[in-house]
């Protein structure tokens, strides 16, 4: 689709907004509808669109496989890290109240980081699935199975 003008232009226009919207959903999750899962999916959708328009190879240059796997891992680590932070700060595992002197702020902070972890992991998983399916038939040797 690289040679089709309209999708290219529209894609270039839309993709930043999609990513931005994903971030909005992510950060606004506290107050309105949204949260890490939705944000992760939206973010991944933006990148999938990129791959559809500019080709998988280009997308893979932008977001390499290693980064996707790293995202998978980092998300879980962030989540678990928040939990451990609770322990280090004197609370129980996943205890948000102790993350800030003010318990309400602590709650916000805890939820925020947990949602970041979820978003990163979900995005990573989506992209990984997309890459695996998209790569089939082109460079099968790349698959991890």
């Amino acid at each position, binding site marked *: 689709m690289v040679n089709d003008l309209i999708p290219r232009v529209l894609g270039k226009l839309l993709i930043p907004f999609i990513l931005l919207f994903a971030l909005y959903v992510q950060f606004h999750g506290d107050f309105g509808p949204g949260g890490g899962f939705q944000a992760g999916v939206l973010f991944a959708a933006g990148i999938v669109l990129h791959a559809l328009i500019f080709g998988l190879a280009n997308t893979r240059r932008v977001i390499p496989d*290693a980064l996707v*796997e*790293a995202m*998978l*891992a*980092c*998300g*879980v*680590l962030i989540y*678990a890290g928040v*939990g*451990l932070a*609770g*322990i280090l700060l*004197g*609370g*129980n*595992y*996943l*205890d*948000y*109240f102790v993350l800030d002197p003010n318990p309400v702020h602590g709650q916000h902070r805890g939820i925020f980081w947990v949602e970041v972890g979820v978003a990163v992991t979900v995005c990573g998983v989506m992209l990984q699935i997309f890459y695996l399916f998209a790569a089939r038939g082109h460079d099968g040797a790349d698959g*991890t*199975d």
Partner: protein
Amino acid sequence: MSLAQHLPALQVVLPLISAPLAVLLRHGGVAFLLVTAGAWAAFAAAVALWLQVDLLPAGGVLTYHIGNWAPPWGIEYRVDRLTSFVLVLVSGTAALVLTYGHASIEREIARASHYLYYAMFALCLAGLLGITITGDAFNVFVFLEISSLATYVLIALGRDRRALTASYRYLILGTIGATFFVIGVGFLYLLTGTLNIADMGARLRDVENPRAVLAALAFLTVGISLKLALFPLHQWLPNAYTHAPSTVTAFLAATATKVSVYVLIRFYFGVFGESLVFQRLPLPEIMLGLSLLALFAANLIAVFQDNLKRMFAYSSVGQIGYITLGLSFDSVHGLTASIVHLFNHGVAKAAIFLLIGGLVLGIGRPGAPPPVPTFKHLAGLARRMPLTCLGIVLAGLSLIGVPGTGGFISKWYLVLAAMEQRQYWLVGAILLSSLLAVAYVWRFVEAAYFRPVPGDGGVVREAPLVMLIPAWILVAASIWFGLDTSLTVGSALDAAQSLLRSGT
């Protein structure tokens, strides 16, 4: 706040964290170190928890509130005697298998996937530990899925292409099992409005709609029975065990089905209560029948297998029959037998599959994909791999239930339980079925010790020490727990008594 207080959380979190780290670092060797360290840390935590529970008065429970939310609302981790017992088994096996596995994994899994293997192993371990320790029914489901998904990947990592279909079959059936489980939990949630297992049990007594409770019980029973491979829902197991990498087989055989049994015990005694499950319903009869079928049919099938791993996989199905048989008695002795056998069989089976892993390594040619360990390969092997073969025979004695091995202890309690209820024919059945175990262990002995070495035997080396030592630790344990029963029987008796007391 000391570290000791957070052990219940750390128990699960330590292996859990090692998984993403292993993925992040993308290097097999580093992943091995990380995950193995995580498993040993989990083992240390499990032992520490065991000691902590030991200090509590009889029937005492350690609880840990995740996120500091009080139990009926928040997720609670509960550690009692039975829990810590299973935790020690699971984490201990994982630590030994991981330590053992490096050499075997080098041969059985493509190098590029090593870090994946370790990550999945860590996830599986974390999932199993989570199932065991959590006191929240939905959390059980989550951890069940974590461990199951990791298990499917681990099985699919086997070099044999049939590993993929085996994994796929397990995926289908495992998902059905998990779905049934979650349907059951859903029913219970609707009826009681809580997900906390202890709370559920308390509120269920006041529930007026027995039909819905029965449906929940049926779904849970079938779902968990699938995961624990109760005959005739066992068909996923032989293929999965046969085609998975040796270390995976060893780990799963010792832990996965055992944790499922644990969940079943938790739900039967903790939620539904003894009187409903065992006195008002024909469940003990059904379970007795299915257990007997497992004892005879699965053991008989095992005798005819040609593939060593498959033979011992079927033997696992048979041995699970002993565990469920103990459950069906609904007595302290029966439950003790179940819990003890869960442990003793896990230890012996892990030892056997680890040694088979060494055997596969020994008979294979360097560089070639690992061969399938059939009886053809076994001819005269005892002379060339004496330690491996001797270890398999010794652990096999525990499967038979020879006095002086762990298996004897479990059978002793089973027989006592049967006699208590004056079911002498069952005593005969239990003892007869152990003759079938004799038959398949005997087949191994005959092939390994008495058949001449074939002319084109090729080069066969004894397995490396790094593999033999963990395997032999397990072999020694299976004999040790046949002689000194204070740990196994002590904990099991304690757990059985408190379970039966709380159920009434």
